């Protein structure tokens, strides 16, 4: 019986954060795919309050919320650390992770909404990208983590991979390479990291699924 289990959904960037962290540290785990339209008794038992994925189960003990899971993983298995060792740099990293967590939902709003609501989501996304470009990627580092990716890079993964697909589904253009040169360079570098490259949801499958979801959501409004 696996010591580490991960309950997830194949399109969720929050789940991938945990997958990358476990793989970077060489931690074997059992992955359990959840059907979010028909949540399993296991998920409801392990995350009764939010009923969301990802959930990490370590020796039978559940941990919820991807950022909390990542910090837990980093503390239990310190090899290939995901946060800076210097406390000040660590606090700055946590600042950016919080920023990513607070602002990223605007990305999925792009395909879940239409009309005025979608326009608002476009504006929010643009502001987020401008902030990262202006304040987050200064200093000429390859990644937020320096030469290697760390938790902050993982926190911005939805900008790197999901945004592009969602733009196509939603029929909006938010990210343009020439408008965000630093961000563009970071995205290209991030997607070349082997752990990331080998562990991303299939683009075409995701495109089809999100198009379908958008159709259903807009029809129900």
């Amino acid at each position: 019986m696996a010591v580490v289990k991960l309950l997830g959904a194949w399109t969720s960037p929050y789940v991938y954060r945990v997958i990358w962290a476990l793989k970077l540290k060489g931690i074997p785990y059992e992955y359990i795919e959840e059907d979010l339209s028909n949540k399993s008794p296991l998920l409801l038992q392990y995350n009764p309050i939010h009923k969301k994925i990802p959930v990490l189960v370590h020796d039978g003990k559940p941990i919820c919320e991807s950022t909390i899971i990542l910090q837990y993983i980093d503390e239990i298995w310190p090899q290939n650390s995901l946060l800076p060792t210097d406390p000040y740099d660590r606090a700055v990293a946590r600042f950016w992770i919080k920023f990513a967590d607070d602002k990223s939902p605007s990305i999925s709003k792009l395909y879940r909404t239409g009309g005025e609501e979608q326009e608002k989501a476009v504006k929010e996304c643009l502001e987020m990208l401008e902030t990262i470009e202006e304040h987050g990627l200064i200093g000429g580092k390859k990644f937020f983590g320096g030469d290697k990716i760390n938790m902050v890079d993982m926190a911005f993964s939805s900008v790197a991979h999901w945004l592009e697909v969602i733009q196509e589904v939603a029929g909006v253009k938010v990210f343009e390479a020439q408008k965000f040169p630093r961000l563009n360079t970071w995205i290209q570098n991030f997607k070349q990291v082997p752990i990331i490259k080998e562990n991303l949801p299939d683009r075409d499958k995701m495109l089809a699924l999100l198009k379908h979801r958008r159709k259903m959501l807009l029809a129900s409004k």
Partner: protein
Amino acid sequence: MEGENKVILHGTWSSPYAKRVELALKLKGIPFLYVEEDLKNKSLLLLNYNPVHKKVPVLVHNGKPLAESLCIIEYIDETCNNSPQLLPKDPYERAQVRFWTIFIQQKLYETMLTVMKSAGEAQEKAIKELLEKLQVLEEGMKGFFPDGSPVISNQNMGILEIMICSLLGPYKLQEEVLGVKIIDPEKTPLLVSWLTAINELPLVKESAPPRDKTVALLKFVTENALKSSSA
């Protein structure tokens, strides 16, 4: 050496977020300089220190600025070994404390804001939601206080106490001014005894803003809510 370990906190008297950091510093016995910001006329320093959000609180430690109250509190806990320990050392317990910290921040704070800023039916709905969420918190806290009677001191107060205190510490005053009940002692007795124990600490009492200022602010907020709901 002069200038070593120089700590400055930029805040406003009414910000619960700044209050959290103030409590953390005082609990650890860390001397600091407090700078009251005028949010209608933000200092250049503040705008420089927190260009992303332009908000308080900002902690400046030996000239290096940090923003976001929870990031600041973890930083304080990691760099100052004085008791109390604001987060547990055990990784699983830390994860539990972080979970409830986020719960209080994301579920209770938002709902509380709606309660304060709305009126009539909208407010009733928000209060119902708040009471439900407080019930969830009550259940969660049973895990932390299994014998049902929290004993809080300057030595064991942690980030969860700081969080609940900055939000609901003045709940009796809030209920008085809003004219509504936001905590039901029969449904959430543990929460009430926890808050009472926290509020009894001299450090917490002396850190609370003056009663009349809080009342004036709450009245201002509710009056605006009534105006906009009857427009």
